[in-house]
């Protein structure tokens, strides 16, 4: 594998989910089972096996084969729960595969989540060294790059302040700065751009494109399609634990955004596709409804339509907001809107009570251009916690029949095609 950086052969990872449904026949069986189970578990654990037997298992990843050349920047896209993160976890050796092999040439650095290993009581300076060591940097290496890291993070003044006093922006900048100054031959990046404000995201993106152009090998997992298009040449699409496509990024993104991968009209979340970190928030479904109130994957721009997000809260959540993201098929954002954007509504809904809720949003007529759109959802408490995000939950298409200007058979540029009020005034009589 002289010019290969990574070679993955038939890699697979099996997870066990939940416990086997118990089927005791009698009360006595149950008692005996309860008495024997701990011993069986202990003896199993001593043999290094996991303690759940014969219960349901799920292949998070299976029969995965691919190669990455040295210096290549490869994008990895797929729905939530498709196995992207599992793949990176296997390659960074956080967890072991169940079958198959992977060979990696060179030191691997991973940016799986910024700020992991930061200790709130330690100062910025101390955390740089600690975090650097955790990420595998040598002390000399950190010393050499220390100023650069502080500079990038823009925290010079607070470098000797405990990071628990940092604003969330400062914290993120510092965390990203440490990770971004790693110098491994191979860098695995997972969704680091999903955090921070716009300016910070731009800066991160800039840094990442520097890294990509330095000739290092990068695997880049993201839901941000424009970042994938910008940073990578080739992209693989993962669906249900398999690689379904590998091609130039533009094609892969196009395929992912418009094919059946992103479901059309309706999206229902199965429990296993939801991260545990979402609790107590549980997304149920997202639907696009036409003006007849029926689920539709194709709506008419001239009629308007609505979007219905159904979810359940296992506990009350203070300050929760749920909202939608709208993107074009190429991943360019169109707009973001939250159900408590109206300040009065926000005050009324200070606490969202446990139970099932539907947040419904009316999209006015004559707003969108014809084409395919992608809808995403988010549930979060501003600056406190993001419970759930699925930026590409479903796709739907907009039919331009009868929209303003449709008497001319021509494509119009831009994702919106609003009906705007025009005046045409004649200011001067024609000279005769």
């Amino acid at each position, binding site marked *: 594998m002289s010019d290969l950086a990574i070679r993955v052969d038939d890699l697979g990872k099996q997870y066990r989910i939940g416990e086997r449904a118990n089927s005791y026949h009698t009360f006595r069986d149950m008692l005996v089972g309860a008495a024997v189970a701990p011993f069986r578990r202990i003896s199993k654990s001593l043999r290094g096996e996991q303690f759940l037997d014969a219960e349901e298992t799920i292949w998070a990843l299976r029969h995965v084969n691919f190669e990455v050349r040295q210096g290549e920047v490869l994008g990895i896209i797929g729905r939530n729960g498709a196995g992207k993160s599992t793949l990176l976890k296997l390659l960074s*050796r*956080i*967890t*072991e595969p169940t079958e198959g092999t992977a060979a990696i*040439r060179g030191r691997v650095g991973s940016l799986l*989540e910024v700020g992991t290993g930061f200790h709130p*009581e330690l100062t910025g300076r101390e955390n740089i060294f600690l975090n650097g*060591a955790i990420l595998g940097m040598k002390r000399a290496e950190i010393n050499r790059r220390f100023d650069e890291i502080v500079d990038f993070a823009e925290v010079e003044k607070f470098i000797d302040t405990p990071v628990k006093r940092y604003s969330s922006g400062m914290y993120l900048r510092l965390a990203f700065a440490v990770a971004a100054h790693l110098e491994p031959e191979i860098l695995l990046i997972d969704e680091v751009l999903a955090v921070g404000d716009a300016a910070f995201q731009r800066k991160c993106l800039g840094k990442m494109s520097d890294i990509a152009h330095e000739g290092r090998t990068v695997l880049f997992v993201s839901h941000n399609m424009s970042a994938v298009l910008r940073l990578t040449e080739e992209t693989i699409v993962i669906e249900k634990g398999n690689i379904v496509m590998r091609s130039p990024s533009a094609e892969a993104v196009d395929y992912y955004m418009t094919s059946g991968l992103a479901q059309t009209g309706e999206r229902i979340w199965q429990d296993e596709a939801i991260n545990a970190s979402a609790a107590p928030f549980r997304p149920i479904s997202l639907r696009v409804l036409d003006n007849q109130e029926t689920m539709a994957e194709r709506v008419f721009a001239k009629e308007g339509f609505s979007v219905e997000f159904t979810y359940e809260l296992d506990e009350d959540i203070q300050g929760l907001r749920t909202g939608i993201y709208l993107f074009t098929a190429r991943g360019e954002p169109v707009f973001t809107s939250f159900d408590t954007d109206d300040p009065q509504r926000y005050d009324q809904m200070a606490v969202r009570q446990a139970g099932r809720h539907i947040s419904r949003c009316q999209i006015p007529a004559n707003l969108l251009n014809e084409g395919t759109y992608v809808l995403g959802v988010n549930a979060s408490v501003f600056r406190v916690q993001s419970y759930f995000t699925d930026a590409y939950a479903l796709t739907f298409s907009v039919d331009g029949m009868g929209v303003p200007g449709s008497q001319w058979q021509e494509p119009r540029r831009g994702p919106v095609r609003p009906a705007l009020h025009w005046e045409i005034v004649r200011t001067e009589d024609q000279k005769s």
Partner: protein
Amino acid sequence: MSGNKAVDTTDVVPITRIQPTHGWNGLNLGELWRYRELVYFLIWRDLKVRYKQTLLGASWAILKPFLSMVIFSLVFGKLAGLPTDEAPAPLFYYAGLLPWVFFQDGINKASASLVAGRNLITKIYFPRLSMPLSSVVAGIVDFGLAFLVLIGMLVYYQFPATKAIWTLPLFLLLALITSLGSSLWLAALNVAYRDIGYVTPFLVQAWLYASPVVYSATMITDKSLQVLYGLNPMAGVVQGFRWAIIGAGQPDPQSLLVSVIVALLLLISGVFYFRRMERTFADVV
């Protein structure tokens, strides 16, 4: 090669092979050595953070054994009138408490270290051994501070240093091996079974009474019982500390040998068990 990492010697750039491992993993201590700076930083973090936002700060390292000594002297020395090997009761108890507190703190912190560090384990790869290892080793600093008090007490009681004082580091090492060995078992088990978190305090308490901390080992006179007693390495450690400091109750070489063997077995089996369970840590924790 059942291990996770094979280094291609023909090339400068290392090639990592990732594949399922079966059976017992190799120890792969070389990798732990490559990550020695991480161990150092984890120890340093432990020390830095431990007494942050406490009123008395690092003096807790001294107060813990010191206050225990005061209580033991009052309850077991004065009230129960247990013999203290002709030494002043405070000195007798403090000499036994020094290694005991080191052992107990190590086991408490290290057995919880993996669960406490679960966000690291699920996000980043590093040799997992470094977590319990650094928790136990960090205790040496506290031990050093508490030891200064012992020196003060020796001066106060005008107690001359014994000839056996040089053996102290060896007994400390035995305490470290015992603490690390049992912590590796407990830490690895704790990942899968949180029961261990509840069991550990009882285990440590039972262990306290199985070791001659509140009483003198010289009270056990039956020779065959002494060898049996040696099965508890901490008995040898505590007895050895007293002998090295106040000169009474020389440990029986035979039972000491048993102690050393048991401690080493505990450590070696602990490391192997830990390495075996390591592959599922990130999935289970």
